[in-house]
């Protein structure tokens, strides 16, 4: 019942748009796998789903479901289902008939379709809600019904388009638990579109990072933050520390000194930027022999229970996020520990970035 999904060098440019929404995108999703397409708004994520769903057609390239091209196949015969950011429940039907819609369309008699719908309502923890009108449910409940409706259609591929981004953090956590539960139970192929790194890493097996319509990197979810392959990706994932310099024999040399990196084999040698996440830098005493560098506290900002600390070093400002209870004051001198396996080196040639971390003016969020 689950199928693989492939985009093969698919491009799509909207009339009047200056740049393609999606550009020569190739992506493989194995049957039963969950892939997250992660990117900022306006990066073409939703277009990817619309192309798979058949609501939009690529200008070039191919879309394949279960290794067969589906170009020319209308949405209703692609064996898919989709959940969007807004629940999009049919307002004139009861909750039960909403969920029974998919089975009914595939020819299941009304009574059986409704019985199936009851089961899926149970699955999303809304038993007995079937007789209510969608408008009488809360936003989180409506989104669960949308999920039940999509699952009830028994799709070979389930498309999720930022399905939880309109929900409260606590409702979102509930929905994440629910999806994990349903994945274990039903094992559909899932393509999830999101701008939330955490959601991507949490729900998917692998993450495809899409920026400006181009696939930047496709990595296992568990390794999402480990090895960004460009500054674009690193910045998009929220990494704040970049130290220009050059790599030699697996070490990075810069104004900060010589630092052991995650590439001891020297594969990244040459002009290169050292990138290390603020979560990975540990602060210690200035005279700690384990410290790779020393610096002077410039500023602190609360980050949840933790604190983001800005440290002035010989290589400019570096950022570290420290655990609760550590208090630093302006001017304190500290040592910085940069674990070698967290020190990523990105060759300068790949510096194709213009904006990103710079406080740029917001981009219109076209889809």
């Amino acid at each position: 019942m689950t199928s693989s999904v492939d985009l093969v060098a698919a491009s799509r440019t909207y009339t009047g748009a200056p740049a393609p929404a999606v550009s020569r995108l190739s992506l493989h999703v194995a049957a039963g796998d969950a892939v997250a397409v992660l990117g900022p708004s306006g990066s073409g994520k939703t277009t990817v789903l619309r192309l798979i769903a058949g609501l939009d057609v690529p200008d070039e390239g191919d879309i394949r479901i279960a290794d067969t091209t589906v170009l020319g196949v209308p949405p209703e015969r692609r064996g898919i289902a989709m959940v969007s950011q807004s629940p999009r429940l049919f307002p004139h039907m009861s909750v039960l008939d909403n969920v029974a819609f998919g089975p009914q369309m595939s020819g299941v008699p009304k009574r059986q379709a409704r019985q199936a719908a009851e089961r899926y309502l149970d699955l999303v923890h809304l038993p007995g809600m079937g007789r209510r009108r969608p408008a009488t449910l809360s936003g989180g409940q409506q989104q669960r019904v949308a999920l039940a409706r999509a699952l009830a259609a028994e799709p070979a591929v389930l498309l999720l388009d930022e399905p939880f981004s309109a929900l409260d953090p606590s409702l979102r956590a509930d929905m994440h638990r629910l999806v994990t539960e349903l994945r274990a139970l039903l094992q559909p192929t899932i393509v999830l579109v999101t701008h939330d790194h955490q959601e991507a890493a949490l729900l998917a097996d692998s993450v495809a990072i899409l920026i400006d319509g181009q696939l930047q990197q496709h990595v296992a979810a568990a390794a999402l933050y480990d090895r960004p392959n460009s500054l674009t990706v690193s910045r998009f994932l929220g990494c704040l520390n970049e130290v220009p310099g050059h790599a030699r024999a697996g070490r990075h040399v810069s104004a900060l000194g010589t630092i052991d990196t995650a590439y001891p084999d020297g594969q990244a040698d040459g002009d290169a930027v050292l990138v290390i996440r603020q979560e990975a830098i540990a602060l210690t005493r200035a005279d700690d022999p384990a410290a790779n560098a020393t610096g002077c506290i410039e500023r602190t900002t609360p980050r949840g229970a933790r604190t983001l600390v800005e440290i002035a070093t010989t290589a400019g400002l570096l950022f570290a996020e420290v655990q609760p209870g550590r208090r630093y004051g302006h001017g304190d001198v500290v040592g910085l520990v940069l674990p070698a396996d967290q020190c990523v080196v990105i060759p300068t040639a790949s510096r194709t970035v213009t904006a990103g971390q710079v406080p740029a003016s917001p981009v219109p969020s076209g889809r």
Partner: protein
Amino acid sequence: MRARLLLLPAVVPVVVVLGATLALGGAQSLGLMPVVGEPALNLRAYRAVVASGDLWPAITVSVTVAGAATALALAVGLATALAVRASRVGGRILGALAASTIPIPHVVGAAAIGLLLADTGWLPRLLGLDEGAWPALVAGPWWGAVVLEYAWKESAFVALVVLASLAADTGELMDTAAVLGAGRWARARHILLPLALPGLVTAGAISFIYAVGSFEVPWLLGRSSPEPLSVLAYRLFTSTDLTVRPQALAVAVVTVALSAAIGLAALGLLRRRPVLA
């Protein structure tokens, strides 16, 4: 309190005219305000209209003509609205066409239909048909021209109301249904039609009420007998015999009652199917 005061200038004329119309019209039809003689509450005027044999045929004609015209207008208007939704370029042209019928007064439309469809009209002449071969649409037994005039004019109205009443997210709901496996016809039947229903009911009721109440079109394009309600009321009201005026008002009261019944039925239908705000 202040908001209540603001209501007054708006409430007063509506209440006065509506109240006066219904109360006094009702009163005169019930014999309480005779042109000559003593006032007395009775149903004489109603009995007289019934006795004249004009009332039942008038109701039948009015309801049939208005019903046929409204049904036709609903079908054409719905098709137009769906076509506008479905195609963008065609949609704009069509919308403009539909809107362009609005400035044409009924009396002009009726005249044009008359010129077009009469036995000796342009269309039979254009088609080179003999008099016998062309159906008697104008002033004929089937009120064809009257029905067509109303249907033509109201279908544009129906299309515009349906388009306006379809929620902004109809397209998204249609996409959702498609992805869930609904083909073109299933989407039209299960999604679009139910969503368009409130608009259809509203436009249909207004259209029907208008067709029952208006009288220039049947006068220009209909037969002289049986008369529809509006024509009957008008003839009795403008009669030189002032004693039949209570009968005119009785017919008017019947017309308003019929219209109000349709309006209430429409409201009932709209209530029964809750619509998402």
